[in-house]
């Protein structure tokens, strides 16, 4: 929203204060000012100058060589126009004047003759479209007068308000509200632009008939009939004002109603009285199915949530949003009905939203405007109409439907409370002075205050003692408050074990395994889920998604990881990435409304070269991580069935922790790689950290070192190529209590091993913590392993 300092200056004189200072104080105390715009600042260096000489240019037919006198100095100027003669008073833009962003007047030689300045046309200065010649000012213009004095309606300084910073302040949606703030900030008197004595000049005391059928729709409705209207272009002063506030001049009545809206913050409307059917105006909720064509020529089908203004036959305006075409004023209008009202903000907001028409009026009504301003707005409007159209005359008294007068809001608090909340020792007089400067009334007894809130702040904005704390704080200046440390006893915070656990995992993956941590959104969408052949119906759907491709809460990190592989393969040959994050599971069984959050770690190994051993790498990272986290009782077991469609059926292993499924390690299914255009080898691990957390040992106790000798034993097993080593190891581990460890040392394929087989070499260590093993005990264990393997169908080398 734009605030014109010219309009402000009529209510509170701040002509001696720099606009930058005004903007700065308002930003710190009231609302964010986003910028300052100077309208036609150039006019300050364009002077009224008399042509003392006009001669042909010695070297050009179409140019004249002139001498212009500003009263104090004479300038030689070359001019291309032809409508000027000696003795004319013209507008001379001095050297250095910036007519526009990229047009600055400079001293120049034009066809060999020096020229210091330029005579301007109206079009060049943006005053009108007239480019037929340069401006010739009236002969009585005082020489040297600057153009900002000659065309005051063209000059203004505008403050741009961030609308988001005033959504809670209905009073600031008009200049009067800002004038009051500025008055309080600079300690100046504020004068209302409304002259209430105007009403005594009304000759016609007839009532305009208004009936508010649904009181809730409109707590106050005021109207006034005016006759003797002539619709025409607005006078220059009014057009200038309307342009200043960022609107387009339309005609005198529309311009005046718009002007009063931005001046007082109260939206106005004017109906053509002769177009009304019958003499009575109704305010009511629309009937379902009723239609209305609004001023923008759009026809709306109304519902019982929309408020309408109607005559005896039907709606004539969408209340608080836009007028109806059937009662629009036009060139033939001679009598009007002016409306100023207070409508139910909730209805206005809903109507404007549903029809997609957020107008200047609806924007204000939805903020809860004070009902107290309606009659003032009518009087102000009438006064301006009289000024623009002298023949205009009130044709009724003010019809004012206001049955439930607004309640006065009174707040009880104390100066002590305000000091305590701000943490600053402000004396009583300063506190009451600030409160009163903002139009609040105070009854004070000792420290206690009974404060009456002015009507324009009382609709929603100010209702409790803490609101008064804010009023005092912002005008006193938060910058003037001395920072002080809170004085409280401190205790160390409770340790969040899970947070430490997460950080340790991140450290291990980044430091021990040189992986790169990535992060994705918590949202996912149908397209990627379908590509991964994940049943999308299981994912929670968002009611109001950011985009249609991010309309579900993720229940797995894998879609993200796969997309990140796809993305990063463009920039990197080989990389290892992981994400540690939450997924969201629909809880179907117990309470369908509750979402189960599960923390997982998923990582990927990518190598551009096809058929690289990525699966083994992913497996060794996952098992290395679980080992480093000291996870008790975990094992990796081969799985062939019930694996997700994106996993390679021959290269997948399940992570089992304490007997429960805690994740999966797999090579990406070739069909999925192809769909995602992943050109290389990729394997992924995905671990349920909630389960791992429970099994991870966090408290370490020292154990006596192995005192008795360890006996190594190596064995090579011939197996089918697709047999998992883990199958062999689990058989070996069953060989008795002296087996301390068993691990694969090598896998060999090729001659002399038959083509469909491989040889897996395993190193087994025998030991006891109680004694040195005897030859017999060792041999028995060895034999048990060998026979177990043979019984399971393996042959040994």
């Amino acid at each position, binding site marked *: 929203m734009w605030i014109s300092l010219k309009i402000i200056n009529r209510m509170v004189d701040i002509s001696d204060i720099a606009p930058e200072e005004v903007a700065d104080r308002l930003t*710190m105390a009231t609302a964010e000012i986003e910028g300052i715009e100077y309208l036609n600042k150039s006019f300050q260096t364009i002077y009224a100058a008399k042509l003392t000489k006009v001669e042909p240019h010695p070297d050009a037919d179409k140019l004249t060589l002139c001498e212009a006198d500003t009263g104090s100095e004479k300038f030689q100027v070359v001019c291309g126009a032809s409508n000027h003669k000696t003795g004319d008073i013209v507008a001379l833009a001095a050297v250095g004047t910036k007519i526009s962003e990229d047009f600055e007047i400079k001293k120049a030689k034009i066809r060999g003759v020096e020229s210091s300045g330029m005579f301007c046309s109206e079009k060049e200065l943006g005053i009108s479209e007239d480019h037929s010649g340069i401006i010739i000012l009236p002969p009585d213009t005082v020489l040297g007068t600057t153009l900002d004095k000659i065309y005051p309606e063209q000059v203004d300084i505008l403050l741009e308000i961030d609308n988001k*910073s005033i959504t809670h302040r209905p009073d600031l949606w008009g200049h009067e509200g800002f004038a009051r703030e500025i008055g309080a900030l600079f300690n100046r008197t504020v004068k209302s632009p409304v002259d209430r004595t105007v009403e005594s000049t009304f000759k016609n005391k007839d009532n305009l008939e208004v009936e508010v059928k649904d009181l809730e729709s409109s707590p106050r409705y005021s109207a006034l009939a005016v006759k003797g209207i002539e619709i025409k272009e607005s006078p220059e002063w009014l057009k200038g004002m309307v342009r200043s506030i960022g609107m387009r001049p339309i005609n005198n009545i529309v311009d005046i109603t718009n002007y009063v809206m931005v001046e007082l913050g109260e939206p106005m409307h004017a109906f053509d009285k002769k177009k009304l059917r019958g003499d009575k105006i109704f305010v009511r909720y629309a009937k379902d199915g009723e239609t209305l064509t609004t001023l923008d020529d759009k026809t709306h089908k109304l519902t019982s949530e929309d408020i309408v203004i109607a005559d005896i036959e039907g709606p004539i305006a969408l209340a608080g949003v836009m007028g109806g075409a059937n009662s629009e004023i036009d060139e033939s209008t001679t009598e009007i009905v002016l409306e100023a009202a207070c409508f139910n903000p909730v209805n206005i907001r809903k109507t404007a939203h549903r029809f997609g028409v957020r107008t200047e009026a609806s924007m204000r009504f939805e903020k809860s405007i004070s009902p107290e301003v309606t009659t003032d707005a009518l009087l102000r409007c009438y006064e301006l109409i009289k000024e623009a159209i002298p023949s205009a005359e009130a044709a009724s008294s003010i019809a004012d439907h206001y049955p439930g007068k607004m309640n006065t809001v009174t707040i009880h608090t104390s100066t002590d409370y305000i000091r305590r909340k701000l943490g600053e020792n402000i004396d009583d007089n300063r506190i009451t002075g600030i409160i009163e400067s903002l139009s609040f009334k105070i009854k004070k007894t000792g420290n206690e205050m009974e404060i009456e809130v002015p009507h324009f702040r009382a609709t929603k904005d100010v209702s409790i003692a803490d609101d008064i704390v804010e009023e005092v704080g912002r005008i006193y200046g*938060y910058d003037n408050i001395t*920072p002080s440390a*809170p004085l409280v006893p401190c205790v160390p915070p409770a340790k969040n074990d899970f947070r430490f656990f997460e950080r340790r995992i991140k450290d291990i993956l980044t430091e021990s395994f040189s992986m790169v941590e990535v992060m*994705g959104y918590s949202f996912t969408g149908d397209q990627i889920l379908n590509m991964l052949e994940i049943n999308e119906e299981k994912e929670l759907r968002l009611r109001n998604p950011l985009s249609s491709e991010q309309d579900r809460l993720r229940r797995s990190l894998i879609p993200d990881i796969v997309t990140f592989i796809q993305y*990063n393969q463009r*920039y990197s040959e080989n990389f290892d990435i992981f994400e540690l994050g939450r997924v969201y599971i629909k809880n179907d069984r117990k309470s369908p409304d509750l979402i189960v959050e599960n923390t997982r770690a998923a990582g990927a190994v990518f190598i551009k070269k096809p058929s690289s051993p990525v699966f083994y790498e992913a497996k060794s990272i996952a098992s290395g991580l679980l080992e480093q986290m000291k996870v008790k009782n975990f094992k990796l077991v081969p799985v062939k069935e019930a694996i997700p469609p994106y996993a390679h059926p021959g290269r997948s292993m399940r992570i089992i922790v304490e007997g429960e499924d805690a994740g999966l390690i797999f090579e990406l299914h070739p069909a999925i790689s192809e769909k995602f255009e992943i050109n290389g080898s990729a394997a992924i691990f995905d671990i349920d950290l909630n389960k791992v957390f429970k099994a991870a040992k966090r408290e370490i106790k020292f154990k006596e070192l192995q005192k008795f000798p360890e006996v190594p034993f190596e064995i090579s097993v011939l197996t089918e190529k697709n047999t998992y080593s883990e199958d062999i190891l689990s058989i070996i581990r069953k060989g008795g209590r002296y087996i301390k460890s068993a691990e694969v040392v090598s896998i060999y394929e090729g001659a002399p091993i038959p083509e469909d087989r491989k040889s897996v070499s395993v190193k087994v260590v025998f030991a006891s913590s109680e004694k040195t093993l005897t030859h017999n005990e060792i041999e028995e264990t060895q034999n048990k392993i060998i026979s177990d393997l043979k019984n399971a169908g393996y042959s040994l080398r």
Partner: protein
Amino acid sequence: MMVDRDISVSNLIYVMKKLLSEIFKRDVHVRLRPGYFPFVEPGFELDINCLICGGTGCSVCKQTGWVELLPCGLVHPNVLKHGGIDPEKWSGFAFGLGLNRLIMMKYGINDIRHFLSGDIRFVKQF
């Protein structure tokens, strides 16, 4: 959020200034402007002096020397009440510090979308 007896705007300013100075490892200037958030009263926008240009004006701070960093305020009495705390006896301040905003300020990152892009060329720089 901090709740205790007599927690004030003055305490809020102190804690914010201290917190930000420690994070950025240098003296910072902060200022409070009125801002509206229904769960605090009074509510503020906290600005920090632009660390990119040092407050002289640049494209990050739109030539103002200040950058809007976080919303904060004194906890609204209704919030305390609904939390089972008597607002007559206790008061508190609350703030919402976006880590992304801080990191962007610290390293001069210009686009918030980098954080969730999964682009390892971005992540590897840190």
